[in-house]
């Protein structure tokens, strides 16, 4: 057993595989113990490969169809993710608007109602508003398209 590497080892193995020897490489292989060992291992491996009984190649159709199916599912999932984001965007915008209003210290519904129809409307407390928005968001989330399960890809 030889406890070192040789820089020509790859080239020697390549030459042994192809059966095409360069003269200098051949003379090196005859004197270098590392390369001689590499040739021996290569020859043993080669004899194993040539004697191996490989089963008949299965039809690639099934693998191909499975690959197609996986690709369709991936596209479908991506489309659903995009629509899910689009669906939840208004809810997020509403939530941000609400926080902004509360931060300003003005109840938004009472101001909006006064300006649109000109009548005073009792103001709504922030707690009530938060509850209403939270319930709306939960409902939107529960019925978002990305949460619906389908048995077959739709794309």
């Amino acid at each position, binding site marked *: *057993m*030889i*406890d*070192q*590497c040789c820089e020509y080892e*790859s080239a020697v*193995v*390549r030459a042994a*595989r192809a059966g095409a020897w360069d003269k200098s490489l051949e003379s090196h292989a005859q004197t270098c113990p*590392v390369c001689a*060992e*590499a040739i*021996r*291992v*290569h020859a*043993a*491996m*080669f*004899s*194993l*490969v040539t004697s*191996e009984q*490989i*089963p008949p*190649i*299965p039809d*690639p159709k099934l*693998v*191909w169809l*499975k*690959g197609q199916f*996986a*690709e369709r599912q*991936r596209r479908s999932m991506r489309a659903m993710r995009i629509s899910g984001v689009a669906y939840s965007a208004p809810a997020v915008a509403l939530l941000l608007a609400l926080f902004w209003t509360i931060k300003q210290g003005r109840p938004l519904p009472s101001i909006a109602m006064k300006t649109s129809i000109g009548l005073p409307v009792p103001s709504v407390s922030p707690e009530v508003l938060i509850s209403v928005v939270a319930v709306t968001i939960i409902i939107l989330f529960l019925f978002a398209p990305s949460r619906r399960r389908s048995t077959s890809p739709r794309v």
Partner: protein
Amino acid sequence: MMDETRFRAFYQQMYPRLWSYVNRMVSDRAQCDDHVQESFLRFLRAAPSKLADAECRSYLYRIATNIVKDAWRVRQTEKAWLDEQSGEEPRAESEGAIGTGIDIARALELLTPGQRSLVWLAYVEGYEHEEIAEIVGVKAASVRVLLMRARKRLAGFLSEDLRGTQHD
């Protein structure tokens, strides 16, 4: 994704080679068939369509190597747990069982799956150290050393075999 005609040609060309490679790594025919099919499937899902043929081959080998490594890890964990449950000492690799009459197939089985993979890729497939590094996911400099150790070990088993045969 690769087109069907190209995939069929690639499959026909690579199936026997990949099967041999995986068979040497797992030594179980049913498992080997599963791993090969899974490798092609993952290849179809993940490989960019513009890869050249040589790159496709490396990519496929990389996928297969990862599948085999993962399965090996699962088996080792399972084995350790079973040993723990049964109160037995963990069983070592059957290196002590070798002796005379060892052939190359058995000698290969005595290497670790990682070593088998390196030896196969270097001496059967003829990959360069850099390509092997990419396939097995280690540095090229490490491949050099790891391959040397694997080759040394395999050569050692083969020498024992030779001595055993001469004694017989």
